[in-house]
C-alpha cells in the first residue's frame, strides 16, 4: 500500500515541478496577473456587503477590465450597469435569498 501511495504521489507531483510526461515544461505562471485576478475577486466579495450588490458589481465590472487593458469607459459603464441590474432583477424574482443592499438600502429598487 505504501509503495502504491508513494508512486501515486510522485505521479501527481511531477507536473507541479514543471515536468510534463512528454518531457516538456508548462507555461510559466504570471504571478502578478494571477494575484490581480484573485485580488480583484476577493476585493469584490469583501465590498459586497458594505457597498451593496449593485454598486459593487458596477465598480468591479468597470475597474477589472480597465486594469486588464480594456479602456473604453462608456462601453464598460453600459455593460456594467446592464449586467448588475439584470442579475439583481433575476435574483429578486427567482430566489428567496436577498442580495446585500448596502448603501442603496434596497435590494431591488
Amino acid at each position, binding site marked *: 500500500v505504501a509503495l502504491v501511495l508513494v508512486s501515486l504521489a510522485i505521479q501527481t507531483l511531477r507536473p507541479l515541478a514543471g515536468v510534463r510526461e512528454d518531457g516538456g515544461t508548462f507555461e510559466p505562471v504570471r504571478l502578478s496577473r494571477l494575484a490581480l485576478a484573485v485580488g480583484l475577486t476577493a476585493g469584490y466579495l469583501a465590498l459586497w456587503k458594505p457597498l451593496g450588490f449593485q454598486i459593487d458589481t458596477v465598480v468591479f465590472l468597470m475597474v477589472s477590465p480597465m486594469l486588464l487593458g480594456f479602456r473604453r469607459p462608456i462601453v464598460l459603464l453600459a455593460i456594467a450597469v446592464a449586467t448588475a441590474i439584470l442579475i439583481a432583477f433575476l*435574483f429578486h424574482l427567482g430566489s428567496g435569498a436577498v442580495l446585500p443592499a448596502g448603501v442603496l438600502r434596497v435590494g431591488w429598487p
Partner: protein
Amino acid sequence: MLWLSGLHLVVEPLNLLALILGSVIGLFLGTLPGLGPGFALTLFLPLTFDFPAATALIFLVSLYTAAVYGGAITAVVVNVPGHPGNIATMFDGHPMARQGRAGQAIAAMGVAGCIGGMLALIVLITISPLVVDIALHIGPADYFMLAVFGLALVAATCGRHAVQGLILGGVGFLTSTVGEDPITGSFRFAYGNDYLMNQGINFAVIVVGLFALGSSFLMIEEGTAAVTPINAPISGVWSGVLAALRHPVEIIRASIVGVFMGVIPGLGIALSNIVAYIVESRLNPRGNFGGGNIVGVMAPEAADNATLIAELIPAFSLGIPGAISSALMLEAVTIHGLQPGPTFFNGNPVIAAFFIAAFLSQISFAVIGIALARFLARGAEVPTSILAPIIIVMGCIGAYAVHGTIGDVILALIFGLVGYVILKLKLPLAPIVLGAILGPLAEGNYRRAIIIEHATGKSPFLSPLPLTLLVLSVVVFVIPLWEQVRSARTARNA
C-alpha cells in the same frame, strides 16, 4: 380523443406563445453560468400561479427543457458549463469552437437534444409503469455499486491522466464527507465552523468555483490564451444538423443512458452527460474525442434532455422527484390541480397538452438555437478583459443562489484557486465533481446496506445486480491503467 383535445389546447395562440417564450427565456437563462433548469423554474414558477393550468404548464415545461441547452452553448463558446449537466459538452465542444465550428456544434447539440428528449417522452408515455417498477426494486446495495461504478468510470474519463484523475476523484469524494453525517447526524471535518456544520460543501458551489472562477482566473493570468478569438468564419450550422442525422445510433445510445440515469432518483443530469460521453468515447477509441469530435457534443446533450424528461417518470407516477428541477415540475403540476400517481397518465386533457407541449418544446428550442447559432457563437469573440469579470460576477451569484450565504461564495473562491491550479496543470476538472456527486450516494447507501445486512443476516451485496456492477467496475477501472502501463512500456522500449 384525449390527445386531440390536448393538441387543441396547445395550439391555442396564447399557449403557443407561452411555448415559444418559455424556450427563448429558458435558453438565455441557461447560458448564464451556474443557473440551470432548477433556477429557471424557481424564477418563473411563482409568476405562473395565476395563469390557466395549461398555459402555465406549457410555459414551464418549455422553460425546463430549453435551459440545459442554453448551458451547453456557454460550454461550447466560452468553455464554462452553464450547468453541471454541461460538463462533458465542453470536452469536444470548446475545441470545435476554437476550430471555428461553434455554429456546427450548437446546431448538432440542438438536434441531438431534441431527439433525446423525444425518445425519453415516448418512454415516459408508453412504458412508464414498467420502468417505475424496476426503479423501485433498486436497493441501497445496488445504488452503492452504481456509485462505485461511476467512480471507476472516472479513470476512463481522463485518458492518459487516469491516475491523477482518480486522485482528484478522491478529493471530490472527501469534500462530500464534510458536514453532517448522513446516518448518525454527527459533524465531520467541520472544526467547529458554523458554515461547514450547517451546509457542508455543496457540489453546486464546487462546480461554480472550479469551472467559472477557475477558468476566469486562468483567462486573466494567461491573457487571451484561454479563449482564443475565433478568426475562422462561423459556418456549418446546416452541416451540424446533418451530422446529427448521420449519427442516429450514437444519439439513441446516449438517450438510453440518459433515460436510465433519469429514472433512478438521485443520479441526474450532472452524471448522465459524463457517462454518455464516456460510453461513446470508449466505444470509439479512434474517434479523436477531446479534439473536436461532433459525437462528443451530441451524446451529452441527447443524454441531458433524455434525463430531464425521464426524471419526470418517478416524479409524476410515484411522487418521488430525483432532482431539484423535477421536484419543481412536480410542484407546478400539483399547484395547478393535477394529482401525481399511477393514474397521472390517463384521462386529463391538460396532462395530454403538457406532454404534447414537452414534445413540441424539444423542437422549438432546437429551432431557436439553430436560428441563433451564428449570433450565439459570436460570444467567444468578446475580449477576455470583459468576459472574465462578467463570468466571475455570474459565478459569485451562482454560488450565492445555492443557500443565500456569503460563505458559499468564499468557498467558491477557494475552489476557483484549486480549479486554476488543476487547469494550469492541464488536468481534468470533471473527476472532482463526479467524486463530490457520487460521495453521498455511495456513503449513505453503503451504510444503509450494512444496516440491512445486520438486520436480516443476509448480505444485499451478493445479489446479481451489485455483483455484475462490481465486475464491470473492476473492468472499467483496470483497462485505462493497463493501457497506461502498456504505452509507458512501449515508449521505454522504443
